[in-house]
């Protein structure tokens, strides 16, 4: 039984490719953000597409894949560093079927496919999270942390806890699809 998760119809904008973006989310620099389709950006989320590499022209700052969920109050901000004396932002790439819990701050460089990130986490600058990894609630990943595929990380600083089951790819894919299908507008009165 798939219980619906209701939202008020006028609270979310649905795009042609099925992305659902809250009107109460802050999408800065939308021209620099790519959403893969069927991705949900919840209330209060902040996505900083405006923090782009210096220079002119079009550039992708943050890209999200299909069936992602950016939870309530999440902050997605591209990582930055000073290299050869020049301060710069670097792009952030997030794969398909990635769920990020409420209140989490993400400054990762790359997040693979089928990744679950819990609530109230801090994913530090230039972190690399490989496919099917899981970050538990309230975990702090310091900058440059590498999370291998199918690993669970927990704590502050986040450390390896154990390995996930071999069927995680299918499980997470089904879970994210189901979540998207359950996320429906409340019927009009």
């Amino acid at each position: 039984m798939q219980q619906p998760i209701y939202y008020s119809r006028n609270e979310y904008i649905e795009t042609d490719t099925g992305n659902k973006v809250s009107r109460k989310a802050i999408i800065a620099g939308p021209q620099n953000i790519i959403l893969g389709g069927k991705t949900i950006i919840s209330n209060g989320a902040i996505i900083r597409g405006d923090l782009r590499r210096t220079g002119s022209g079009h550039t992708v700052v943050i890209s999200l894949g299909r069936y992602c969920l950016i939870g309530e109050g999440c902050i997605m901000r591209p990582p930055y560093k000073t290299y050869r004396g020049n301060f710069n932002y670097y792009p952030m790439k997030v794969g398909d079927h990635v769920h990020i819990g409420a209140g989490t701050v993400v400054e990762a460089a790359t997040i693979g496919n089928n990744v679950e990130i819990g609530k109230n986490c801090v994913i530090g600058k230039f972190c690399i999270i490989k496919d099917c990894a899981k970050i538990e609630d309230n975990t702090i990943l310091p900058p440059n942390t590498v999370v291998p595929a199918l690993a669970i990380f927990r704590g502050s600083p986040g450390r390896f806890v154990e390995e996930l089951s071999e069927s995680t790819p299918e499980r997470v894919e089904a879970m994210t699809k189901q979540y998207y299908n359950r996320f429906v507008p409340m019927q009009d009165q």
Partner: protein
Amino acid sequence: MSAASLKIYCPCLNPNSLPPPPNLPSSSYSYHEIHDLYFCEECDSIRCNRCVSVEVSGYYCPNCLFEVPSASVRGEKNRCARNCFLCPSCKNTLIVVPSDPPESADGRISSINTLGDPPFFLYCSHCRWDSAEVGITFEKPTSLANQLQKYEDSAPDNLEFERLKEHFEPFIRASSASSSVTHHLHTAQHIHSNPITAAASDALSRDVPGVSKYNPLSRSRVGRDKANRDEMPEYRSRMDVSLTGSDSANVENLLRIESPEEIATLEQRWINSWTSSVLTNDLKPLRIPLHSKKSKRCPTCRHILIKPEQKPQSVRFKIKISATSYLPLMGISLPFLNNPTTAAYTAKRSIRPGAMWEEDKNSTPNNPVMVGGRTYPFVLSFTNPMYDPIQIRLNVLRSPLPTITTTAPTDELGTAPQPEKRRPPFAITLPTFTFSVAAFAEAWEYDDEDGDGMIEDEYADLVDDRRHASASSRTAPGRGGKTKTVGVLEKKANTTYIGGEVVIGKEAKGDIKFLMMVTFTYRNDTVDDMDIGEEDGDGDGSPVRTTNPQSSSLANANKQPEIRTFSYYVVVDLGKIAQKSGEGSVDERR
């Protein structure tokens, strides 16, 4: 959110064993999520991580992600020999920084900067530990493990280990020939070890020829080997253990400290294999321990269940025989409990599945709970992964066990506890008839493309279903036959929804957990798939129980398809019974 869950019992090589009482904490080791289980087609049996045999199929560093060839794992002492180090203080990964590192705006050193001036040192971006403070610096920012080799080689634990190895070498060489024979014997009977022991003993027996695999059954060997062992000369350690880490030095250190942080915590010193200084300043960076990829086999027939791809970060498997391809995927929900919006929604449609919920004082819209003395419906879903339809029957086990844990030690009358006279804390009603679940078809997959219509249908069927399914279902008692909660609620694609009901006793407490036997029958088109099943079948996780009809039809032409049955136990956890208001808080819910 709902705490409801379903877990499957793995008999772990003991096919006739009954599952342990689900409400005992110790039983958690016997019940598993379906996603954590494997299925051996040869043995027609569920396998779990506690009973499969595990073999290491490759090593990699969890930080730099480089694959480490098995040949060099031993020489490198199972740790990364590149530039990967753990902070000795907080176990975060260290980064290499030059002297006078450029600080970023927030005051943290944020990147591995290979430019800059020597000396280089290791730095923790979490706790700010830095190796220069403990006197470790590097001339160049690469091959750090190499540069640290001199520290490692001269460490007392390392010297002692080398000495031990030297001591045992002659003995190992002498006995390696004879033990390679026993080694094979042991592989065959090596059945009962957990993955960690198995991996460790596999590695050990490969690398150290004289050491046989750990096997609880083979303790008797010790007697036979005793004579051999007596010939070994006595080992004398490099130094007297009682003299290392003398207390007087510690006392001196303690007298001088100014803050408790100067003493390393037990956790920080725990992984040292040698008595070491208690001072934080003496902690050394640690090379990162390697991780491994593992293959898994059926412990009985040795068929391979999991075989990972070589590439360290690949999440694909050459073989993956997951239980999800064989057993129906089950889901559970308490529709009027977890989702207040749903309750409002159904109320609006005046379905009213029982007037008893709506005035529940303990159950505020944001905090729905179950309380004693009431009846709640629940829904089980069964999704068929196979290309043939299946028939399922459920059988709730009415075990005497709830009386053990859920009743107070003395009842109101103060009579001696008599388990059989006590009323069970709750009663479960589920349909006892057989129901069908349609076959999996690739087309169902497209369902998620066309949106949300299904959700409404489910609730519409609560009413409509009565028309066409009345023969096989009944209405809940004391309900006036208005709506149906027990029976087949809906069939959609390859999923069937079954309604059940729990009646909670007035004084009941604790978890609502019950055991249920799930029996399903399916048609097996092959005469005997034991012979046809090839060892390394495709393991891409797709439904594979139905073998290829073309190949089997020739051999099978005159035979009727065989009907097969498979039974297994599932523990259903509906959540906690909340205490009634006035009796205490309702905090126990979680």
